[in-house]
Every structure is written in C-alpha cells, then in structure tokens.
C-alpha cells in the first residue's frame, strides 16, 4: 500500500458508500480520510507517480513539506467532518463530500498544471453536489450560481495554463512570480482568485455555504478556499498585488459579518476575512509570512470547521440560524456553547488557542518587514473578528434573552463528538505550537508565547469587549440582509437575461405572425397540408443521389 496516492482512499470510500448500509457506511465515511492520512504518512518526500501522455508528463504525486501540511489537515478535518455527518440516512452528500476531499488532495499533491487543473474542476463539481444535497429551493439556486461562477473561474484558470504553456512556460505547478507576470500568469491568478474568494469574486461562497445542509457547510468550509490558498503559496509567493487584496478582504469580510443575521452567513464572511490574512501573508512573500499563511490555513481549517459544526448544531436543534430568532442557548445546549467559544476564541487569536499561534505570526511578519499599513489593517480585522463572532454571535445566540421560546431538537451524539475532537485539536496546537511549527515549509524563527505578545492579544480583546459593551444597542442584529456584489448578477443580470429571453420569444412570435402565418394566408382557398407537401419519394430520390455522388467521389 505504501506509495499510493492519498486521494485514492477518499475516492474509493466515495464509490463504496452507496453500496453500504448502517454502521458499515458510517465506518467507511470515517475510514476514507483516516486511510488517506495513513497513506500520506507512509509517503516520503519527492515525486513518485508519473503518467506520460503524448507531449507532456503528468506528475500526479509530489510530496514536500507544503503539500504534506495541507494534505494532513485536509484528512484531519475530513475525519471529523465525516464523523459529524455520520448520522445521515442518505449516502449521496457524504459520497460527494469524500470526493470533494479527494479532489482537494489531488490538487495539493499535483506536480504539474494539468493535473492540478483536473482535480481543481473535480472539486467544483462535487462541491455543487454537496450544496444540492441540502434539497431546498435556495440550495438549488445557490448551487447553480456556484456552478456558473466556478465554471468561469475554471475556464479562466485553464486559459491561463494554456497561454502559459504556449508561451514556453514550465509544466511544473510552481512559482510564477520569479519572472515578469505574463498574461497567462495573470489569468491563472484570476482563476485561483475565484476559489480563494477574493472580492469581488467571493459571492459564490457567502451565497452558497449558508444554503448547504448543516453537515455540508462543515465540509465546504475547509476545502475550496484553502486549496486556493495552497495554490497561491505555490504559484504566487511575494506577488505584491495580493498584500492589499488580502488586507482589504480581511476587513471587507468583517463588515459583512457585522451586518449578517444568519449565523452561517456570518461565519462564511469570516472565511473571506480569514483567507485575507493568508492572502496578504502570501503577497508579502517572506519566509515568515509564507509560514504564517500556511500555519494560519492549517489552524483556520480546524477552528472554522468547529465553528460551522457548532453553528450547524444550533441550526439543527432550533430549526433556524437567524440571530434575531435565537438567544439563551447557553443554558439549553451547554456543550455546544463551550465548543462554539473554543472556536470563537481560536479564530479571534486569543492564547492559548491555535489562532493565536498562527495569526500573530502573519501579523508579526508585516511588522518585521516594516509594513505598518497592512499590519494595522489585519489588526483591525482581528478586532472585527472578535467583535462579530466571539461577542456578537456569542452574545445574541447564547446569552441574550430569547425573543421566542422554541423547542429544541436533541443534537446527535456523533455531532457532539466531532465538535469535541476539533476543539481538542484547536487547543492542542495552541498549547503546543511546535507541533505545527515543525511541519512548516520554510525556515523562519517565531515564538508566540512572549509576555508582550500574550498581553497584547489579551488587551486587544478586552478593548474590543469594552467597545462592544458600549455599542451593544447599536450592534443589535436586524432581520435584514446586506447587498453584496452578487446583487449585480442576481438583479440587473437576471433582468438582462429575462429581457433577452423575452426578446427572442418576441422575434419568434413575430416570425410566426408575419412570416409563416402570412404565407398561409396568401395561399388562396382552403389550406390543404398534404396538397402542398413534397412527396416522400422525391426526397428519397435526392438523398440517394447525394449518397451516390458522395460514394462516387470518395471512391475515385
């Protein structure tokens, strides 16, 4: 078994699921990513799996520190995501999820652009199925919009790869920042930016993730954006454009999180915000900032999975994710409340949770490089993160008085166990950061637990809490949505489309009345369809003549 591609385990499990029942299926779901992890740990560094095609060679399996780090955390969150979903009666969503994980592993271990692209597209396809398995009208529409944007992104990426190769660019999926940026490289960057949810290309995420099923959004939260972060670290380290896009999206996501009423939409906007930290770190391109981006992706996958799990538990129990209809859940679901706050403090970057050891690393990298502007923007985004997740979501869902008394459904045990597992990992990597730092791909020195860093983080959060306290009545959630870029294609875009359809219909109707009907009307007397019809024999004659001529010419 040693030497096999880890994604094989995931695809095999996905294929097997529909044929399994009961506990066998539950075990297969969890075994898939576990086996992937085992296969990965059996692999040594280097490229081992090639497939030659006419004109180029596919490099299917390239293992190094960077791909190992992402592959490990993808399998880890896969195990817990599948545990969280293991009560599902129906195998389609879980099978799609496993295939999505398999696709993301395929991208991570791809050594050349073509392999990367194929798995990239597989991910998009299976993501759409995960969305559709929610089975609601919103999920169906959001899934279609997701598909359209990702087809656009994938097409852009593929066009970029073709241009890059046509211009004599290398086959290897490796850095493109060294030389001057070619048009091909810009297209590749734009294609990856769609999956990284860099505004204004981010709305597929905040549109579709809240529309997923409770279990689906947990799986979704981990893979698409973080695979894109991986691709950016590979292909565009030190691309200066990314610094400002990253810092900008970190703050952008926070604003929309403050607007959001739906808890899963709030968390989805925080994916945009957190990926901003990583994108900015990649743009800076120092060893420390790239390590920070990779470490933050690793930690983010764990705590964001945990946050979506606890939000999902709330949605599953209460039947709604709207903060205006929730409240007082701390007493009713104490374990979910504890797990939520582990995730909330992790994403906020408070010691001793894992966000602290990765987020401060990225921010510190900007300080060390004398880039005060982006550094302060990321600090601002940190404040907004704690403000909108730890304080706003935490307060209005768990502690504020409930507006309506609702009967809560019990949360399945496997969901609680999965939350416990991820919460444990968040704490483990926070308390023991060397476990993570040892696995980082670049050589850099950083110590998170110094007196002034710990104290600084605590001060920042206390200050935020004070500000929240004073502004509490202003920050109260409203049962409203906030317009985002997706308005462009959901309102004017849809209007243009329906206008175009109406126009075509109008032209068709006009052709009918002015054309066909007019001709009929011009024929004197009672219209007899058979009377004007060309006899079948004549048509047959022409066809036979044509075939005979064709045969004659191809013969000579």
């Amino acid at each position, binding site marked *: 078994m040693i030497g096999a591609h880890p994604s094989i385990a995931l695809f095999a499990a996905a294929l097997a699921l529909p044929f399994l029942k009961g506990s066998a299926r539950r075990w297969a779901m969890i075994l898939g990513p576990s086996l992937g992890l085992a296969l990965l740990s059996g692999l040594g560094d280097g490229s081992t799996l090639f497939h030659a095609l006419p004109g180029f060679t596919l490099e299917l399996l390239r293992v190094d520190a960077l791909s190992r780090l992402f592959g490990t955390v993808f399998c880890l969150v896969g195990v817990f995501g599948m545990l969280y979903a293991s009560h599902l009666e129906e195998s389609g969503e879980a099978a799609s999820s496993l295939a999505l994980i398999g696709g993301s592993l395929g991208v991570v271990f791809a050594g050349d652009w073509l392999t990367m692209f194929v798995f990239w597209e597989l991910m998009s396809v299976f993501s759409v199925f995960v969305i559709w398995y929610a089975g609601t009208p919103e999920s169906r529409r959001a899934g279609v919009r997701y598909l359209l944007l990702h087809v656009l992104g994938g097409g852009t990426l593929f066009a970029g790869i073709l241009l890059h190769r046509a211009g004599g660019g290398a086959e290897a999926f490796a850095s493109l920042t060294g030389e001057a940026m070619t048009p091909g490289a810009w297209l590749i960057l734009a294609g990856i930016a769609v999956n990284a949810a860099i505004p204004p290309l981010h709305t597929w995420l905040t549109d579709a993730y809240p529309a997923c099923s409770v279990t689906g959004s947990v799986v979704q939260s981990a893979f698409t954006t973080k695979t894109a972060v991986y691709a950016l670290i590979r292909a565009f380290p030190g691309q200066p454009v990314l610094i400002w896009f990253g810092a900008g999206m970190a703050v952008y996501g926070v604003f929309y999180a403050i607007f959001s009423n739906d808890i899963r939409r709030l968390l989805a906007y925080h994916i945009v915000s957190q990926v901003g930290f990583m994108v900015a770190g990649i743009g800076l391109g120092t060893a420390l900032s790239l390590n920070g981006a990779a470490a933050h992706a690793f930690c983010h996958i764990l705590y964001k999975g945990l946050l979506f799990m606890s939000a999902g538990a709330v949605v599953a129990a209460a039947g709604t994710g709207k903060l205006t209809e929730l409240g007082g859940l701390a007493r009713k679901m104490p374990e979910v409340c504890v797990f939520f706050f582990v995730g909330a403090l992790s994403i906020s970057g408070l010691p001793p949770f894992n966000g602290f050891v990765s987020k401060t690393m990225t921010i510190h990298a900007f300080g060390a490089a004398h880039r005060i502007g982006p550094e302060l923007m990321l*600090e*601002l985004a940190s404040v907004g993160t704690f403000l909108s997740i730890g304080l706003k979501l935490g307060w209005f869902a768990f502690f504020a008085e409930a507006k309506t008394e609702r009967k809560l459904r019990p949360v399945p045990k496997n969901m609680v166990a999965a939350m416990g597992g991820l919460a444990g990992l968040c704490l483990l990597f926070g308390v023991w950061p060397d476990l993570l730092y040892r696995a980082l791909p670049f050589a850099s020195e950083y110590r998170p637990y110094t007196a*002034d860093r710990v104290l*600084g*983080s605590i001060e920042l959060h206390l*200050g935020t809490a004070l500000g929240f306290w004073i502004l509490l009545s*202003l920050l109260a959630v409203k049962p*409203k*949505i906030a317009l985002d870029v997706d308005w462009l294609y959901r309102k004017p875009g849809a209007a243009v489309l329906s206008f175009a359809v109406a126009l075509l219909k109008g032209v068709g109707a006009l052709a009918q009345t002015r054309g066909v009907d007019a001709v009929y009307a011009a024929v004197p007397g009672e219209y007899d369809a058979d009377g004007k019809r060309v006899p079948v024999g004549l048509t047959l004659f022409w066809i036979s003549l044509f075939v005979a001529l064709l045969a004659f010419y191809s013969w000579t």
Partner: protein
Amino acid sequence: MSAAPDAIGRRQGLKMTLGGMIGLTLCMDASLYLRARQTAQHAAEHAAPHAPFWMSFPGFELVFGVLAAFALGLVAKLILFPLLKRDENYYDDAPAEET
C-alpha cells in the same frame, strides 16, 4: 424592557470583571514596558523592534481595540448598513424556476 433583578446583578458582575481585567493587564503591561526600558537588551527582546514608538506604549492594544471596535461598529451600522440593507426576502421574487 424591564430586566429581571438577577440580570441586573449579572450585568454589574460582568462590568466589574471586565474593568478588573483591563486594570490588571494595564498594570502588567506598564511594568513590562518600564522593565524593558531599563534593560539593556530592550531592542533584542522586544516583539517588534522596528515598530513606531507608539506601538510599544503600554495599553496601545487596549486603546486600539476600543477605537477599532468603535470605528467598525459606527461605520458599519450608521453609514454602510443603512445603504445596503434589504428585506430578507429581497431576492425571493426572482423569476420562479421550473422544477
């Protein structure tokens, strides 16, 4: 809305806890700052040796946190949200899809 007496008590307790923690961290931060200034290896030990002087002031993060929370909250809720908010069923009257 009239809060129950125990809610008022809880509010008081929260306020005192928050105040106490702020005071405590400020004291620790100030002592750290003063000690660092006395030590010869100030530059070597300090987190961000190249940072502007005001970033290493005791309580900088606290003030930054309060101001940032205010800025975010006020800009978001008083300027942006009134412009961007719509009813929750705003997109629902989109053309009905056929199933």
